[in-house]
């Protein structure tokens, strides 16, 4: 890669910026917005923006810690069930007369414990996260069903439904979007500007090397799973508040959208690379796409086709782009590397 830098530095950095995944996402987002605007005059109104973004916020919030987990080379399929369990416990406690603040605190503790279970089994037990979290996907959903059964709880206080349903005063920006942006900012700084983030990348790139350079791999992974469990529980609270209903099947099927958003955001499924800004852009792309499809009269069920295709395409494109790039490099390459790309030590030797 660095061999190609040289006389063409100017042009190359421009093409590299263009070829960045985030740039592609931005272009896709603009194209979708133009298309959506052609579909309906209401598309660009701020009220519609609030609606389209609010419907995706639970997924978006869960996608943030999922980004870190996938960068670290693991996956957590249980998030949708943790959101459901959180919703079920919230409804159960509220119906039993527990004050809302206490109920939310209990739910967050359950989220931490669930994440801890995943983390311990994966990091200390050495088990594959795919199977462990498939197991807890069933386990958490099962617990939600046991706790709440087939009933729904919906007589929540108005102050509570404001969390998911309300807007920032004077605007059409829903509160969950504010929560999402705040979380994205925090996790973005942690991932891209702190030693913790560098450890996460190191684990995903090469776990063995990370361990030998002093990264406490198990501890970081457990921390990531706990964070994911906690945030999935938060998403469950927001979902319950937004729908002002608590049901045991809340959030069913969300894991697919969460993973789609993360991979569309340019995160490598094998770990080691990906960015929070990319995932934030992917959230917007998916929100705009779903809204455009809805305006075009495509039912929610059929939209899952688009989502599945998006998931696969977002992995296919980078793979083939990489192959095409290395093919081009092979053709273009062959000339000697420019002087300044040779490491200093080697030049001194020669």
């Amino acid at each position: 890669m660095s061999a190609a830098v040289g006389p063409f530095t100017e042009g190359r950095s421009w093409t590299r910026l263009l070829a960045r995944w985030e740039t592609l996402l931005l272009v896709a987002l603009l194209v979708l917005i133009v298309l959506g605007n052609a579909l309906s005059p209401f598309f660009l109104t701020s009220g519609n923006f609030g609606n389209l973004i609010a419907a995706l916020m639970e997924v978006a919030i869960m996608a943030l810690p999922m980004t870190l987990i996938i960068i670290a080379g693991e996956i957590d399929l249980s998030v949708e069930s943790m959101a459901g369990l959180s919703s079920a416990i919230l409804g159960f406690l509220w119906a039993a007369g527990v004050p809302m603040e206490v109920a939310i605190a209990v739910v967050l503790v359950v989220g931490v414990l669930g994440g801890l279970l995943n983390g311990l089994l994966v990091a200390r037990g050495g088990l594959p996260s795919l199977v462990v979290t498939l197991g807890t996907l069933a386990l958490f959903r099962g617990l939600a069903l046991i706790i709440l059964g087939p009933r729904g709880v919906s007589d929540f206080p108005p102050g509570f439904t404001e969390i998911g349903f309300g807007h920032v005063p004077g605007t059409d920006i829903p509160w969950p979007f504010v929560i999402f942006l705040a979380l994205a900012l925090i996790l973005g700084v942690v991932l891209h500007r702190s030693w913790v983030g560098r450890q996460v990348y190191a684990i995903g790139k090469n776990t063995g090397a990370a361990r030998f350079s002093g990264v406490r791999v198990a501890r970081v992974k457990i921390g990531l799973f706990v964070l994911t469990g906690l945030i999935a529980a938060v998403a469950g609270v927001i979902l319950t508040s937004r729908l002002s209903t608590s049901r045991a099947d809340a959030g069913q099927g969300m894991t697919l959208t969460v993973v789609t958003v993360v991979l569309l955001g340019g995160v490598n499924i094998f770990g080691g690379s990906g960015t929070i800004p990319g995932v934030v852009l992917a959230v917007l792309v998916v929100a705009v796409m779903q809204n455009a499809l809805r305006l075009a009269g495509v039912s929610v069920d059929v939209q899952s086709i688009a989502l599945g295709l998006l998931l696969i395409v977002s992995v296919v494109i980078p793979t083939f782009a990489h192959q095409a790039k290395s093919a081009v490099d092979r053709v273009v390459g062959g000339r000697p590397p420019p002087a300044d790309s040779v490491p200093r030590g080697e030049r001194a030797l020669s």
Partner: protein
Amino acid sequence: MTDAGVTATLDVPRDRSAWLGVVARQRELSLVAIMVVLGALVSIAAPQFLTVDNISQVAVLASIVAVAAVGEALVVITRNVDLSVEAMMGLVAYCVAVSLENHMFGAPGAILFGVGIGLVLGMINGFIVTILRVPAIVATLGTLSIFRGVDYLVAGSHQVPRSGLPPGFTDAAHNDIFGIPIFVFIAVVVVVVGSVLLRWTTFGRQFYAVGSNPEAAAILGIPSRLVVFVAFALCGLMAGIAGVMYVIEFGTINGTSAGGYTLQVVAAVVVGGVGIFGGTGTLAGAALGALFLGFIANALILIGLSQFWLQAIYGLVILVAVSADAYILRRLQRAASLNRSR
């Protein structure tokens, strides 16, 4: 191959962990033993458990999962996974039911149609994984969503009632050959044929080779991508058969039919001792895993627990099975290294 390596190190007698070796090698036997013990306990609490009617009902329902689990096991043995099984089953089930309702085919034609659709869906998965090189988990999570979406698109809000199927079509679930329900017969045939091919043909052994060490398999000249493609295609075929069985058993089919089967199928494979890292396990184990899950579901209902417990117990069973596997493997490796240093 991993299984051969493990057994070879275990031939040292009087080893403290020898019994673990037995458990590891004889997963099928351990499962049967657990079922016998649990069965005895359940039948004390609920005498109707040990009736012929009940057991054959459990076996019939488990056969559907077992057939799909055989396909899943083939994929998992090659170190991949197929999460789209339930969507393939659902799409096949709806296509079969609706084609029968509209008299497009006779019963045999509809069955072939359904199995054929399953095969095509499996080949789509195989194509995405081997040609487009998308990791199996992403590819099949995507097709889970796509196939289900197509199912909704085709079905809309339409539901094929049992009465829409030709008279006698749904009886096959309860007919029997020599006293064995036809469904159990189908499952046994699938397991036996599959096991023979997997164990005694070169191409079958290559499934294990690709799964236990893809790089070594490639160096040996094994056509890894072809093997993986065939595994996915066969998984689709099996999901197709299971989808047809689903129509015969349940009769009433709509766009959401067969939801939740992926979890059962993957659980059956994991419980049946097919290693999730590929290269180990048997089809009989996967089928027994399916029987084990069906048995637990039935026992729960008989001892009066609500069906809401089922989901949680499936989850626990998966977690216990993988934890036990990892524990046994670690003990065996420790014992093996002790033996070597002795």
